[in-house]
């Protein structure tokens, strides 16, 4: 902690900035930690603490609302896996076209189109998608959620993938083609494997975005179709119950795990 002592003479550090950073981390994590702790509360009330137990976790899987949560979780995960797979495939192809496609007139426009879901406020995308499906007479249900998620996830998959591709020099592919590899072989045997960390990060981000989405899902889901966030929102409207905290903690765990994997994958490679 010698650094702390010499603060006054160190041109780079400002007094108080470290405290603010720690405060910032505290604000970010305190609510999550508190909910995680209270999910293990044995009490029926969310206010009083009556010792630790797995009571509410058991309730999620076997309690009166378990059927609802199970089908919501099933929908959420199936939609997230399919939407993320589609979005990642589309984004990988698009990134190849954008980063390895030379200069072309529609390039700026294409980039604008790909990042459109990030620029339009989410609630506007939700309204627009609902109106669109309604106007073409497409019945709302699992399929509408899946389509909306696929489109919305594309930029989240695209950004890490294209960032990664920009970091790979094309000399590897050129070398392969000098040795009589076809372009297709250079793509599948050289570029794709080098791209893997970016593709995995992109897939994971798209997966989390789909799994977490509430607003778009809430608009385009049909009656009776629920995903975990819409099911949780429905319950929370009647007050926060302990079983919701148990579900939240599990979902929180999944997200943190996935992001950690993505972080480690992107950190592990140093081909640059």
């Amino acid at each position, binding site marked *: 902690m010698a650094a702390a002592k010499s603060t006054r003479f160190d*041109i*780079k*550090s*400002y007094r*108080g*900035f470290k405290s*603010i*950073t720690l405060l*910032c981390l505290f*604000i*970010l*994590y305190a609510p*999550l930690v*508190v*909910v995680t702790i*209270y999910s293990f509360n044995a009490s029926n009330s969310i*206010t009083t603490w009556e010792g630790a137990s797995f009571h509410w976790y058991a309730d999620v899987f076997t309690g009166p609302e378990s059927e609802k949560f199970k089908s919501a979780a099933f929908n959420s995960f199936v939609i997230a896996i399919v939407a993320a797979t589609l979005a990642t495939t*589309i984004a990988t192809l698009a990134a*190849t*076209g*954008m*980063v390895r*496609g*030379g*200069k072309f007139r529609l*390039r*700026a426009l*294409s*980039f604008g*189109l790909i990042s*459109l879901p990030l*620029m*339009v*406020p989410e*609630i*506007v995308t939700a*309204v*627009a998608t609902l*109106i*669109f499906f*309604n106007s073409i007479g497409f019945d709302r249900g699992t399929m509408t959620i899946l389509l909306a998620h*696929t*489109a919305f996830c*594309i930029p989240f998959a695209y*950004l890490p993938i294209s960032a990664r591709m*920009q970091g790979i020099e*094309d000399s590897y592919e050129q070398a392969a083609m000098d040795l009589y590899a076809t*372009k297709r072989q*250079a*793509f599948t045997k050289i570029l794709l494997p080098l791209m893997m960390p970016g593709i995995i990060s992109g897939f994971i981000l798209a997966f989390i975005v789909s799994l*977490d989405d*509430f*607003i778009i899902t809430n608009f385009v889901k049909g009656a009776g179709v629920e995903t975990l966030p819409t099911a*949780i929102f429905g319950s*929370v409207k009647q007050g926060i119950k302990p079983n919701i905290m148990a579900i939240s903690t599990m979902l*929180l765990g999944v*997200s*943190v795990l996935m*992001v*950690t994997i993505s972080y480690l994958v992107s950190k592990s490679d140093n081909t640059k």
Partner: protein
Amino acid sequence: MAAGAASGGSATTDTYKESRTWLLMPAWLTLSILVLAPVSMMLVYSFLTKEFRGGVIWEFSLAAYDQFFFDRGLFGDEAPKIEWTYILIFWRSIWQAGAATLLSLAIGFPTAYFIATRPEHSRPLWVFLITIPYWVNLLIRTVSMKFLLRDQGPFNDLLISIGLIDSPLHIVNTNFAVQLGLFYSYLPFMVLPIYAAVERYNFSLSEAAADLYASKWVTLRRILLPAVKPGVIAGCILVFVPSMGSFLAPDLLGGAKNFMIGSLIEEQFKGNAGNWPFGAAASMILMTMVLILLLIYARQQARAEKTEG
């Protein structure tokens, strides 16, 4: 999403030039059909007549925009007056998003600066710590915030047990709770661009200022801040824009009194009581405001890049 990305990145080669169209086709098709066409259809719907059980009648009408801006009395036959209800809701959204942006800046700037001045090998870990909560479900984060802050919640319990207050602070269902929720939702968007800007900053400029007897705070304000301004502006926009259209934070933390645009729009599509053309019109107005902001930002970034290189 910070500078540079706006132009689509720079490094590009032309290995797959011939198949470019086929590579981009799936993205073009998906996004045109599922984002561009819907937004266009929303524009059309905002000029249609409402049907009373939700949905629309295909008849051109300016009623939605008229209802937004003008009050023509209960039977629609009085002289038009300005309708303040919806303008005030928009104004409140701008104000709330602005306050949340300032809060994020006040905490995000020192945090970003602190992270950017850590030893190089430990920076990614700090950034990772800041971004993890962002990837946790927004709904769960907002509910957690509500749980923590409510009158009988752990935060008030803590303050009472250490004797700081006698009766619980009423935080939930206030403007401040919404601002805190928005801050919590989008903080990484403030930290990351500022962090990127400070990391690129040449600290010998600060040293030169110090050699000339500038105090540390003068150096921060006069030398560092102008240099990292593009990052600060990027952060402010990235927090402000999603805050303005947010739905969960005002709905769960704000209660009925703190209605924002997001809730106004959502209400128009819920059940039979809604008004689809009006919801579409409100969405169009929101989107236009956001796109204007982003356009100003893009031009500002382009100018900053020009002066840099």
